[in-house]
């Protein structure tokens, strides 16, 4: 009997699911068709919740100099961070570009070797060549401060999470949330407490940069082989001895990798931090984007990329070297090490003394400046002129046939039907819990008074995710099946992941103008590398003998892919979808900056005009709601599919 029912239940549920999703969609379409335009929520003026946020904002402004919370907590943090940044800024001006380049190259030489020392020198000189010496130094200072503080907080917390299961259980979900939220979303909240300015920028950066430091430190500590930990324990080591003699030294490599990830996270935040008035390269990108000056944006983006490459290469090399470095024995290596230290000190001395000899050497010589703004602008103009037909055709086609209909379906159907429909879809995909979360999150967006903006953003995210999955699966299958393709494409993907997201906006803007489509394409470019990698990983993890047996029973390549490899990689495909959708959301809201509208625009507008500060805060929250909703649905899809297998 039990066997019979056990057999019946899943099959009837499977039947349900197969038909239920199309049924919901058709019903929704019918309601849209006949109930068009009724019961829509307006994008009207500030609602009560936005008013309320505005009042909080005003109260915070009023209390900034009287409330103890501000006087003793927020203000000191902002002030200390601010003054550290400004004193370091003046230090960099005093050292001049030669001093900074000398110091940076010397440090790279010490931690990563000759080649990387040279790379650093070239990278730092390139800032001047691009004509962005001052901006680069501002960015550099902010990155250093943010990374230093992030590590100062993140590494001890990571150690704690590595040795204590209890703390790890508490901190992991917090880190998960911190990483799925688009950074954009919490900017308004940060400015509420710390006002706009460099300090806020640093704190926003830290929120994004601390999680990798904690995660990787904890992972490194946990990876240490239990055999070694046990051995030290069996010899009577105290907890502290165990930590300092065994766990930290053996986790060193992973911790340095954490430094690398923290640095990359901080770098990817510089443009976003610029939205709340953090100066530097990010600000150059933003102001150029707003003026639609593709060349200037590209020039600043290039400087960011140079900085990212230097940081990434040097810290990666440092992480690889940490193991070898501690054990360099023998007279010969002793000598080369001395030489390295000597050369480094020489570089610093030279760099610092030069401006002392002649003050004019402190500033980067004008005749060496060769910015890329004008050439890029002429290329952009040429492209716009000659490709205009193709790009505008693409833009209008996708907009007309995909974006507009979906957006209309989402925002012109009576809103209760939309909430019900999405909740039902969530239910059939993932079960009851994601359905409840979906309904709750949508109600949240309504409460924020930002229903139309939310639906605009959601439509873009869905379409972006669709394109991303098509491209991700196409390339992922190719990479997963062909070693050659993998070797060819993977370096490009790696490089793509190092670049700060805003940089992608620049060429997209040049090609497609300030439209929603631009935001989608930028999101596609931003999210694809991760998705392709995960899909390729899934394809590769299909056991070779399964594939071989399919081939030996006469399947052609297409059948092998569609009937064997993709179904078996389904778990990974769903992970890819989840990651892809989170990445797309992060970028689509950024697209609000260049005419994609939606919640991103509301956030930015909130910084720009103080009367809209309440709307900005509400939009940040609405992004959070969308993020949680999309994350829960895609995650539960993975889970429920697996349990019914």
């Amino acid at each position, binding site marked *: 009997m039990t066997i019979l029912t056990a057999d019946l239940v899943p099959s009837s549920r499977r039947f349900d699911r197969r038909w239920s999703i199309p049924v919901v969609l058709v019903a929704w379409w019918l309601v849209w068709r006949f109930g068009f335009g009724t019961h829509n929520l307006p994008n009207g003026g500030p609602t009560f919740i936005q008013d309320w946020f505005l009042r909080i904002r005003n109260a915070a402004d009023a209390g900034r100099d009287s409330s103890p919370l501000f006087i003793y907590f927020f203000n000191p943090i902002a002030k200390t961070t601010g003054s550290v940044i400004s004193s370091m800024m003046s230090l960099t001006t005093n050292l001049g570009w030669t001093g900074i380049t000398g110091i940076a190259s010397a440090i790279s030489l010490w931690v990563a070797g000759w080649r990387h020392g040279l790379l650093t020198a070239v990278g730092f000189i390139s800032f001047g060549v691009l004509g962005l010496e001052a901006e680069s130094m501002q960015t550099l200072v902010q990155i250093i401060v943010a990374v230093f503080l992030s590590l100062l907080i993140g590494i001890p917390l990571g150690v704690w999470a590595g040795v204590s299961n209890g703390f790890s259980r508490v901190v992991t979900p917090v880190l998960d949330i911190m990483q799925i939220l688009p950074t954009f979303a919490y900017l308004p909240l940060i400015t509420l407490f710390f006002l706009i300015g460099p300090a806020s920028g640093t704190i926003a950066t830290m929120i994004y940069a601390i999680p990798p430091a904690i995660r990787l430190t904890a992972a490194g500590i946990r990876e240490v*082989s239990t*055999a*070694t*930990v*046990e*051995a*030290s*324990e*069996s*010899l*009577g*080591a*105290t907890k502290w*001895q165990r930590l300092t*003699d*065994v766990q930290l*030294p*053996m986790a*060193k490599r992973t911790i340095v990798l954490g430094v690398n990830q923290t640095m990359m996270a901080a770098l990817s935040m510089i443009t976003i931090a610029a939205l709340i008035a953090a100066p530097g390269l990010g600000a150059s990108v933003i102001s150029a984007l707003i003026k639609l000056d593709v060349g200037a944006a590209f020039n600043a983006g290039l400087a960011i990329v140079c900085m990212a490459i230097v940081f990434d290469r040097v810290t990666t090399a440092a992480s690889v070297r940490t*193991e070898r470095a*501690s*054990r360099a*024995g023998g007279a010969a290596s002793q000598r080369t090490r001395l030489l390295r230290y000597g050369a480094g000190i020489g570089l610093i001395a030279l760099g610092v003394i030069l401006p002392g000899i002649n003050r004019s050497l402190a500033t980067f010589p004008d005749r060496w400046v060769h910015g890329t703004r004008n050439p890029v602008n002429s290329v952009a103009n040429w492209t716009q002129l000659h490709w205009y037909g193709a790009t505008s055709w693409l833009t209008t086609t996708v907009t007309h046939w995909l974006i507009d209909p979906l957006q209309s379906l989402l925002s012109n159907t009576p809103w209760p039907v939309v909430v019900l429909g999405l909740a039902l879809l969530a239910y059939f995909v993932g079960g009851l819990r994601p359905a409840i979360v979906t309904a709750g999150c949508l109600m949240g967006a309504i409460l924020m008074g930002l229903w139309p903006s939310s639906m605009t953003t959601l439509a873009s995210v869905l379409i972006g995710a669709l394109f991303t999955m098509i491209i991700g699966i196409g390339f992922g299958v190719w990479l997963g099946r062909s070693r050659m393709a993998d070797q060819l494409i993977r370096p490009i993907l790696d490089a793509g992941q190092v670049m700060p997201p805003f940089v992608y906006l620049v060429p997209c803007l040049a090609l497609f103008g300030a439209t929603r489509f631009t935001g989608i394409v930028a999101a596609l470019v931003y999210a694809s590398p991760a998705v392709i990698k995960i899909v390729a990983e899934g394809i590769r993890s299909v056991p070779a003998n399964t594939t071989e047996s399919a081939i030996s029973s006469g399947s052609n390549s297409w059948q092998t892919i569609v009937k064997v490899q993709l179904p078996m990689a389904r778990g990974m495909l769903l992970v890819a979808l989840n990651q892809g959708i989170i990445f797309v959301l992060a970028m689509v809201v950024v697209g609000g900056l260049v005419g994609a509208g939606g919640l991103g625009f509301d956030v930015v507008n909130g910084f720009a005009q103080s009367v809209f500060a309440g709307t900005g805060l509400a939009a940040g929250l609405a992004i959070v709601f969308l993020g949680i909703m999309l994350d829960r649905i895609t995650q539960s899809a993975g889970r429920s599919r697996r349990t019914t297998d």
Partner: protein
Amino acid sequence: MNVEPEPAISVRGLWKVFGPHPERIVGSPEAELSRADLREQTGCTAAVRDVNFDVAPGEVFVVMGLSGSGKSTLVRCLTRLVEPTAGQITFEGEDIVAADQARLRELRRHRFSMVFQHFGLLPHRKVIDNVAYGLEVRGMNKADRHARAHEVVELVGLQGYEQAYPDQLSGGMQQRVGLARALAVDPDLLFFDEPFSALDPLIRRGMQDEVLRLHHEVKKTMIFITHDLSEALKLGDRILIMRDGAAVQLGRPDELVGAPADDYVADFTRDVPKSHVLTLRWIARPPVVGEPLDGPELPATTIIRDAIRDVMHATAPVKVMSNGQLLGLVDHEDVLRVIAGEPQPVSV
């Protein structure tokens, strides 16, 4: 009968249950369930169930059993690397279960040490510093601990490799480092958790000889875990066989082979060449009427293999003697039956 010396370590009613609320299992009816049923009903795994034994000073005590039978857990309970759920452990009269952390550290630093299957060496330290680590933990100064480490490195035959890093050594050499590290603190009790199972057979045999040699030289009490029966028979004064966490049989090697307690033990010992393990005691029989009683005498503790030549060359049945008394006779037939009754020895 001579008086039994005080055991080095004594274990009574030892339990280790993994899972939620393990303490409720011990003493409840659920404790009687099989391991699989217990797991299904309570989510708990009884890794060690109600184990009792004494280890005499200077003895090599071997614990054997299939993978998952609870050997590692048992030995870790003895030094409280794993907290026992119930039971008593007494080391030289001291209650180990009641010891606080400070006392435990003291014991681990000076009285116990352990050699691990996967070595557990510190990859970022040279051989000499790995060997000296136990002394460093105690707070010994560098010169003294290095001097001591050099002695031990020599004892295990690693001189010349003091400045190497572990990953520059072969598996066998790495385990010698593990051994040296354990010996450096001059412990009274050495624990070995399958120390040689990651090594290939030739090196393994060399290391076993090494342990036997060390045992004769330094006379330490050793508790040795293995799942290799030939290793157990070679090293062990006594062997404890475990299954699903419980002790199945405890005895000398010839007792296990000659009188296995159940099919599980018999299965274990099936492939052992009996003549290599059993003593004459096991095959001595009462004289048949009229049999000549003027054959040579051999002690009852002689391994059959070592007696073959004498028995075959003797013109009359060999007299098996124990404490000056005749235990029985052994003739050609008896010996041949033992040899013929066994399967071909498995070649390694």
